[in-house]
């Protein structure tokens, strides 16, 4: 798949792309929301969220609310820019292939 080599490898993964696509349109989302909407397992989602956090694309805040642990995810400015670039690259590849 050499034609996709310039696509951001952090985003060019199904689950990470799904997470960023969900977060791009909201202010913040709980872990459980991302899990429900992506249908991912908790373990896999945690790993992918960590990768996105390490890339600086999302912020993760862990807190307690009413004695229950809560993990809140929010896209960063870098994440928005990276997603924007990813979509533009993707569109150019798709239009070039037509």
């Amino acid at each position, binding site marked *: 798949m050499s034609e996709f080599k310039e696509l951001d490898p952090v985003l060019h993964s199904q689950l990470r792309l799904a997470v960023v*696509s969900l977060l791009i349109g909201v202010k913040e989302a709980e872990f459980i929301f991302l899990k429900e909407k992506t249908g991912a397992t908790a373990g896999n989602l945690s790993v992918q969220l960590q990768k996105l956090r390490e890339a600086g694309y999302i912020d993760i805040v862990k807190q307690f609310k009413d004695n229950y642990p809560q993990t809140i995810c929010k896209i960063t400015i870098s994440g928005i820019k990276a997603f924007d670039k990813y979509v533009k690259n993707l569109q150019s590849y798709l239009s070039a292939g037509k």
Partner: protein
Amino acid sequence: MNKEKPSISGEESLRLIEQMIGRARAAEKDSGRGWIVWGWLLFLTSIIHYGMIKAGIQKGNMVWQIFGVTAALLFIYEQFLRKYFVKAVVKVKTYTNELVSKLGVAFFISLTILVYGNIRLGINNTGLNFGYLLILYGFWMFIHGSAFRYRLLIVGAVINWAGALVIFYFKEKLGAEVLLLHAFCVAMGYLVPGHIALIKYGKADSLTSGDQVTL
């Protein structure tokens, strides 16, 4: 969703993005419960007041005072106290929901000042005050409906603005019937869209929770 797959095609990526953005957008919804309560309060108060006038009961303004106190208490409960009594799980916060919440606060502040102004200027007994109220309702409906892309609320806004025009055109000639016009506009702008939104909200909830992607 399975463990990370090494590569996806461009089409798959685009489809996934569209799916997820659509799913996040589906989280931007309003159950309509707030408008239903508010709408019924307004509707019943108008009808009761109209009935009192027709029955020759002079204390018609009292029902609006009761309405005002009830609405104020409900507003305080909804804005400040509800979170202490109802442990609602908010899984996602959207910019639209936040904006609409602030719009609600602005609406009630504007409404309070407007009602005070109507009483102070002495036009609350002319029926013209309902024209100003319908303009304000229409404003709220139009913004709220646009934010949630809910056409029925926008139609409600147009009906309320038309109602205001009718009131200002006929002025005092409408008499007690202004209350029926007010009730009609409230029904079209709050009750009908509210009840339909509530039905759709329940369906959307079950749809979004069960509608999983399998990648």
